[in-house]
């Protein structure tokens, strides 16, 4: 699905009225981004949390009132709450995961090559996850979720100014990361 707002609004409207094709277009477009956002949050069970998020979204879809941007903010807000619930119910240490040493593979092997070939999006998500918690979440919501500053501020309970500052600092940190340069070379 494209990101054109009118198209999104039309698809959203049809999904709300029970059109499964329209709903699955929403899902195709937003589910991968929801998974990446949850990974940035350090969620251990992203598939389960994302499933719970969509379950709640489907359940409450008929009561949802808003446009494309509102829907994205609503969906990712649900995802954030579900991720927080999951983290509370399972003792885990995001800090430990985020600071775990990245061990280079000693020499290439077929199975590792398979990973590296398709790693760019995963690696990009991991880089964002490596930022400070505030910066990582702002970068993820602004870029991955595609939310505007006001929506991100609403979800995080921060001022728009604080969101902009966190975004700038996060992007600056990422820009200085040599892996971002390497990623650019891979993409080219």
């Amino acid at each position: 699905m494209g990101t054109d707002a009118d198209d999104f609004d039309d698809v959203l409207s049809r999904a709300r009225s029970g059109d499964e094709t329209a709903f699955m277009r929403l899902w195709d477009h937003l589910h991968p981004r929801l998974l990446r956002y949850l990974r940035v949050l350090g969620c251990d069970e992203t598939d389960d949390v994302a499933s719970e998020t969509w379950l709640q979204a489907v359940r409450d879809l008929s009561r949802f009132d808003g446009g494309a941007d509102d829907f994205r903010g609503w969906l990712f807000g649900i995802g954030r709450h579900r991720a927080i619930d999951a983290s509370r119910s399972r003792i885990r240490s995001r800090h430990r995961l985020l600071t775990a040493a990245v061990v280079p593979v000693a020499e290439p092997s077929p199975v590792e090559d398979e990973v590296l070939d398709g790693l760019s999006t995963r690696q990009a998500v991991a880089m964002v996850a490596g930022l400070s918690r505030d910066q990582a979440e702002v970068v993820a919501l602004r870029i991955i979720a595609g939310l505007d500053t006001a929506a991100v501020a609403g979800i995080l309970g921060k001022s728009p100014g604080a969101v902009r500052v966190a975004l700038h600092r996060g992007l600056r940190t990422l820009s200085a990361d040599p892996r971002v340069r390497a990623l650019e070379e891979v993409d080219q």
Partner: protein
Amino acid sequence: VSADVPDPDLTELADPALNGLVRALTANGTADELAGRPATLAMFRDSRRRPHRRRFAVSLISAAAAVVLAGGIAAAYTAALPRPVQHIAYRMLGSIGVPDTHRPGSPARMPGFTATIPATAPAPATTVRPRPAGRPGAGTVPDLVLVAAQTRIPAGGQAVLSGWLAPAGRPEAGIRVRLLEHAAGRPGWRVAGTGVTDGHGDMSWPVPDLTSNASFRLMVRGGAVSSPVFITVVPSVTLGLAAGQPPSVGTLTARAPFAQAGDVVVLQVLSGGVWHRLGEHVLDREHQASFTVLVPASGDVAYRVVLPRTATHGAAVSGPVRVAAARATRGRRAPP
């Protein structure tokens, strides 16, 4: 950076390297990311088919709220409300002393109860085709209710199912009730056990040795059928390491005794704080799958396996296994 800094244009950042990062973060979904599509579609269809459940739940909550607002707190305190409504009142007001008359799985609630459940693997049984659940007898109170103490249990473990029979909110004792089971991957429903309601209209079944997902319902002869309860069985999965030949490789073996031969296990490696998919193998007849990995020249690498959910079991993840540098795997003592 000050708080009045302007929003950057994320579609065209000044730094071309960041544009590459943005493209990667917003790329179309991968096959892995979209793997849950069929399940989501099924969930959406199911939600469209069963709007009455939602109305029913809302009506129950509304009923509880109405009772409370109308002075039903006193009734709740004395456990005089219909059992489902009493249970909701307990959930809402338990902290201030409202009792719960329904405690799923609580042995104290089943005095004199008798039930028969085969403790061995399911034998061929009479196949029954349950009729659609009847309408609740009193409009907001279901006749026959089945609940599970836990809806996710370890493979080979025991599910505890409890039910109560209360037409029009009034418990009925001495009624024979059948527990029906529909095991994942098998056609039809079969009788898994029978029981007789006690003086509270309660009955309970421990269902041992569950090794695959299953749905359960209650049925009264010539009467109502309860809504189904779905139990997810979670198999254990372990990952072990054996030194390989040559010493620069190691063999990681995943074992999932309660999974099925042919199920897929996914090997993941921890990198950058995130678990990445390395590859996948299917479990053999011994419920095992092996992966050959490189032993790092220095430090260690953490691996784990994920057993994705299937129709017959839930998802499971092994504990991490660290593959240490070649020197350590050859048994040399690490320097203090």
